[in-house]
């Protein structure tokens, strides 16, 4: 590794730490949110440098994009009830000083454990490489998510559904008044939606052999939905169809697992011959559900365009 690449890594890592510090200490929460979004984009550059392009895609789309839009939306709702900032967010008093010292101790311990790891340790990469031919796909991250660690991903989709249930139950977000979209915004939405759908489909298809997959594709698709909602607010009410689509991905995944179990295999243990097509099926269903889930998390449970309380 030559010195030139190290310059980039040092600048990037330093910038990440600086952003984390500033976004927690700036008194204006709006600027903190801006820095949070910047932090997400730069973090995806760090994933690229660490040879984790799948994670980079997810971070850019979910960590920076969808989360950023969610926080901005919440900030507006808080703003309506007085200034959303603090004079001195992290001023040191005695309890905080003790906390800071403890956290610094934790940091020193982590640093020591990182530096003292044996250099030749290979983790689970050899085991994964040995199991890859039986997984049905070429991308080891997709194989791990959908095949080796199927349980985790199934429950992850369940967590997404639970979050939607929580947001619907809290009913916290009366929709803001629909502002007319200007002509330029209309042009932007019309021009960006088709590439977003194409890129989402491409990421889903590419997931088998290259970086990409259901979650990244879903986030790009959801970004399209959120963009549309920002320009022309629409309503995704808690209705039968919406619930059906949100549950679809989980249902398909569960059904595949149960069918395999009844056919004599074990739950979620994909047979070698059909693993590729099963993974694509599960991922397609999951992408549609997850995309709608993200949009619903953003839109909330607003039934009423006038901004009145709907509870």
């Amino acid at each position: 590794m030559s010195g030139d690449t190290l310059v980039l890594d040092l600048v990037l890592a330093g910038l990440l730490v600086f952003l984390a510090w500033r976004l927690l200490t700036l008194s204006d929460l709006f600027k903190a949110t801006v820095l949070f979004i910047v932090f997400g984009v730069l973090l995806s550059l760090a994933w690229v440098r660490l040879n984790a392009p799948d994670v980079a895609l997810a971070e850019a789309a979910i960590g920076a994009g969808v989360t950023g839009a969610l926080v901005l939306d919440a900030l507006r709702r808080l703003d309506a009830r007085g200034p959303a900032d603090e004079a001195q967010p992290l001023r040191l008093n005695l309890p905080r000083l003790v906390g800071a010292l403890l956290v610094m101790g934790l940091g020193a311990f982590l640093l020591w454990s990182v530096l003292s790891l044996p250099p030749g340790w290979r983790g689970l990469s050899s085991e994964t490489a040995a199991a890859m031919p039986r997984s049905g796909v070429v991308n080891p991250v997709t194989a791990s998510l959908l095949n080796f660690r199927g349980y985790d991903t199934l429950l992850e989709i369940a967590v997404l559904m639970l979050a939607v249930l929580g947001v619907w139950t809290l009913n916290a977000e009366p929709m803001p008044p629909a502002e007319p979209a200007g002509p330029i915004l209309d042009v932007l939405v019309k021009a960006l939606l088709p590439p977003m759908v194409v890129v989402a489909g491409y990421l889903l298809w590419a997931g088998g052999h290259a970086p990409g997959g259901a979650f990244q594709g879903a986030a790009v698709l959801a970004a399209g939905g959120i963009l549309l909602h920002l320009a022309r607010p629409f309503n995704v009410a808690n209705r039968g169809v919406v619930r059906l689509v949100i549950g679809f991905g989980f249902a398909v995944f569960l059904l595949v697992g149960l069918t395999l179990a009844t056919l004599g295999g074990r739950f979620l243990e994909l047979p070698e011959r059909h693993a590729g097509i099963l993974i694509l099926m599960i991922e397609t269903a999951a992408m549609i559900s997850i995309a709608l889930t993200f949009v619903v998390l953003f839109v909330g449970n607003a039934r009423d365009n006038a901004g009145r309380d709907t509870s």
Partner: protein
Amino acid sequence: MGPSEWLSMVMVSVGVFFFIAGSVGLIRLPDVLTRLHALTKADNVGLGFIVLGLSLQAGSLLELMKLLLLWPLALLASSCACYLVAEATLLQSRRGPGARRHVR
């Protein structure tokens, strides 16, 4: 190194120069609209030069197509975003400096 590599290195350097110019403009210029102008114009030109320089080195047709699709998308997105931010700034200033933004 062949001439195409030299050419792409020159183009990438010009692109990076525009990026730096854009950031200097963002810091030095006196008001929001001029800063917006500096940022959007310089960054778009800079990205264009970098895309051109790298497309000379593209390994496959698919990669070349993706690169050439990327720049118009970035142009469109950032010029529309620039317009929207400028419009918001004008709306804000027309209401007067003391006017509190309120959300109904």
